[in-house]
Each structure stands twice: as C-alpha cells, then as structure tokens.
C-alpha cells in the first residue's frame, strides 16, 4: 500500500490524475450511446439530468465565492449581469475580473 501511495505522491501523480479524468470522461461520452440501447430515460431521470448542469454551477460558485469574500461575490454578480445583458461569456469573465480587481485595489 505504501509503495502505491509513494507512486501516487511522486512524479506519476499529475499524470494519474489526468489519465483518470480522461478515462472517466470518455466512459461518460460513450455511456449515453450505450445506455440508450438498453435503458429508457423516464421523466424523473430526464428532469434530474436537466437540473444537473445548473446544480453543479451553483454548488461550485456559491461556496467558493463566499469563502473568497466580497471581491469574489461582487465579481460573480458582475459576471452574471454582463452575461445576461451582453450574452457573451468572455465579456462576462472580463467584467468579473475587473470588478474583483478594482475592489481589491481599493483594499476591500
């Protein structure tokens, strides 16, 4: 066990992580096609899958922004507002960065 852990902690670690992520993601990519030949997507399953992307975003952004403090919260609001008004993700990202950087420049 300790040799395995030493191996993971060594230079192989980052590549193990990348390989594991790539393998799982590929399985998900082919999973939908494989599944459709066997399973029926019932309405509750469909609603769960539809709610999943937004739920991931909410579960990620809310705790990270609150933990990072007011500049992060203001930046998230600026990004959301810009995305809503301009419909452009790159502009939204830049607005978020500008808002947070400005707030930090003022020492908030």
């Amino acid at each position, binding site marked *: 066990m300790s040799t395995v*852990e030493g191996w*993971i*902690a060594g230079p192989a*670690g*980052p*590549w*193990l*992580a*990348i*390989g*594991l*992520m*790539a393998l*799982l*993601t590929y399985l*998900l*990519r*082919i*999973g*939908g*096609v494989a599944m*459709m*030949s066997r399973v029926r997507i019932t309405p*509750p399953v469909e*609603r*769960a*899958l539809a*709610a*999943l*992307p*937004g*739920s*991931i975003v*909410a*579960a*990620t*952004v*809310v*705790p*990270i*922004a*609150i933990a*990072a403090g007011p*500049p*992060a919260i203001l*930046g*998230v609001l600026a990004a*959301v507002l810009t*995305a809503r008004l301009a419909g452009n*993700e*790159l502009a*939204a*990202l830049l607005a*978020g*960065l*500008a808002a*947070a*950087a400005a707030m*930090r*420049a003022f020492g908030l």
Partner: protein
Amino acid sequence: MPPIPDARPVVTGAGCLLGARIVAPSLPGVIAFAFAFGAASVQKGLTLWEAVGMSMVLTAGASQMLSLELWRETWTLGALLTIAAVTSAVNARFVLMGASLQPWLKGASLPAQAGSLFLLFEASWLAAERHRAEGGRDAGVFLGAGLLSWTVWWIATIPGYLTGALVTDPKRYALDLVLPFFFAAFAVPLWRGVGRSGPPWLVAGLVALAVQALVPGYLFIVAGALAGALTGACHREHR
C-alpha cells in the same frame, strides 16, 4: 425530433467540411476558454505538458477548470478519488448528449462509434444537432466539427499558458477567481426561470455551503450537485 430512417449513417468529406463551417462561429469562445484554462493552470503549478496533455485527452472545459481548483502539489489516493468524482459529476452531461446522438450513430460499426465519441463536446454536439434539425444525415458533420474544435482547443492552451507565466501577481488581476466568474457566466443561459431552475439551484447552493462547512475538501461540489439533480427529479413545475 423527427424519426431517423434506420439506415447506415453517411460520412462524407463534404460533410466534414460542412461541420467545420457550422462550428466556426463558436471557435472564438473555444479559444478564449482554452486560453483562460492555460493561464490559470500556470497559477496552480501545472507544467506546460500537463496543461496541454489535459486539453488533448480530457477536452472538457468546465471540468478542466474545476480540476485546477482541486490540483495538488503532492497527490494522494483521496485526492485522486475526489478529482475523479468531481470530474464525473461535471461531465455527466455527456451521457445525455451522447444519448441524443445515438439514433444517428447506431448504424455505424462499434469502433467507428467509439472513436467518434471521443470528439463529443458542446461545440461538436451543437453542430451535429443543428445539422440533424435541418434534416441532415451526414455524420461527417459531427466528425469535422469535433476535429476542428479539438485541435483549436488544445493549441489555444499553449499561448494561454505562456501568457499566464508572465503574470507575477495573479491576485492583483483577480486571476485566482477565473473559475467562479466563468462558471457564473456559463450558468446564465442554463437558467430556465424561477419555477424550473429555482428549486434545484437553491438546494444545490445551500447543500454545498453546508457540506463545505462540515467536510474538508471539495466533496461539497458533488454533494450539492447531486442534491440539486435530486430536487430536479422530484420537482414538477406547477403551471
């Protein structure tokens, strides 16, 4: 969706070119996201090869960004399991996207299906769905769109990384916050109104906050996401 005739899918060179043309307008966004990933990966201590390698074999923007949040200097079994769980949760949407392509690909040989599904991303999927919605049956559209966006994706990681390496004080430009800002912007088009998106998103955020306070690490993302999906499954919108 119109019923797809049960025939072997057509794959033509012209279809590949058409797919590349359909996907072209989304390439600036692909470049910007890959650039941002490259720049952010420097700050988290990845080597250029690790960043580009991840772009080549994972090719999934949101999960690549999120993996940076979970990146370690020294890896442990627990950290590997966490990153595996979070990646699977974030990329679970590929199951649904693949499921919608299945009627289109089912006539092809298994190796051809398995090979082309490596190129399943938002951009290629959207191009394919558009082509199908217009009555097309050429699976080359999916291949062409996928190959072009894959190539652009991993190449654009390189200038992003090199630019990120020039920034000595990332906090000054709020670059440590790229992930939450990008995610928040990404979520805006996913919003389907308070009635449909409100409950799952609210539950996801609250459960994630609670789990974050109670459990160390990044389990809160998986817990919040599953709670949100479960809420979506149980919640029927009242019209």
